[in-house]
């Protein structure tokens, strides 16, 4: 019987090209990923099954937690314009340097008089500063002014309505959230977003 000789095939493949591509993509994703900055007011958002994402720009986030209210606007130009507007309203002048720093900041929760101090701090110190929250009682409703001024700035710059999102802590009492909703509704903002975590339907 004739022996059929099987050709010995090499089992190894050349991985060099694959490796190159993989690392190229990896570099790309690492560079595009944005580093997460620690929030000034960490909140534990409640979970929901609804999965719609928040926009990246023209967005204001009102963070509510531990009885405090913090405010954040996305978009550098809008932030600058808002700070200008708030400065004019409350008679505080902010320098160009202040505005540039404010544009790069994240959420804050101080009365407008103390904002300059927060702007001058380093990013790491801001979270430790123990910010008292933005006043929103009927005598001194600064949150209302922040909202008004930032909405106007968005319309001026982008010709768009500012989207508002409420990021509340799961354990926050409802009346506090209701108060924020009331402030929004007083300005005829009847549609807004609630920031939530994700979960499956099976709970």
């Amino acid at each position, binding site marked *: 019987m004739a022996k059929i000789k099987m050709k010995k095939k090499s*089992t*190894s*493949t050349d*991985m*060099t090209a*694959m*490796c190159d591509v*993989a*690392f190229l*993509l*990896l570099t790309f*994703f*690492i560079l*595009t*990923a*944005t580093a*997460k900055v620690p929030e000034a007011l960490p909140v534990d*958002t*409640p*979970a*929901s*099954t*609804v*999965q*719609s*994402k*928040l926009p*990246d720009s023209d967005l204001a986030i009102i963070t*509510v937690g531990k009885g405090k209210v913090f405010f954040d606007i996305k978009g550098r130009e809008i932030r600058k314009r808002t700070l200008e507007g708030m400065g004019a309203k409350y008679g505080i002048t902010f320098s160009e340097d202040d505005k540039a720093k404010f544009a790069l900041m994240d959420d804050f929760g101080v009365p407008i008089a103390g904002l300059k101090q927060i702007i001058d701090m380093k990013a790491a110190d801001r979270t430790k500063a123990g910010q008292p929250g933005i006043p929103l009682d009927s005598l001194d409703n600064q949150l209302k002014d922040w909202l008004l001024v930032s909405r106007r700035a968005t319309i001026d710059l982008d010709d768009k309505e500012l989207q508002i*999102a409420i*990021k*509340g*802590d*799961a*354990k*926050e*009492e*409802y*009346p*506090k*959230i*209701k108060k924020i*909703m*009331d402030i929004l*509704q*007083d300005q*005829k903002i*009847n*549609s*807004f*977003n*609630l*920031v*939530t*975590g*994700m979960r499956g*339907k*099976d*709970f």
Partner: protein
Amino acid sequence: MAELNTGDGGGGKGGKVRSKKQNSKVDLTAMVDLAFLLITFFMLTTSLSKPQSMDLSLPDKNEDPTKDKDLKVDEKRTMTIMMGENNKLVYYMGLLDAPIAGPKDIAYGKDGIRRELLARKKSVIEYTGNKDKGIIVIIKPGTKSKYKNLVDILDEMAITGVGTYAIVNDFQPKEKELLEKK
């Protein structure tokens, strides 16, 4: 795929020193594995780190509150859900003075309020005989309820597909009593 370097373990039996043939290939499999794992990680985290959100539209506040009451709604279509302290949840169908069902305590989640909502939704459509005239849910978050409770109930609305719901903040004294009862 992996190459095994089987060097002979003979150990100079013949006395001849043979230079070992060096394999010039490096096994890249593990490296590629790792690279793809990291790619997957970064890809997923960049798109998932965007916070999820839930849309909420409320009716215009400045509208005359009496106007709403003129809008006649069949009370057999309404279901009222009240939230209280410590995840307490009370629901009833129809009017509180003459309820169709309840008032009853119920749990959150799929075995509690969701099952009830789905059943009620079906029965209301059977009752009206019109798909457009479905159940109307009135959500009443009590002053001691947590924000999580509100989101949970709004989430149930989204899951069960109840399109018409309203958040109402005023309580009748009798409802308050129900909610505070242990």
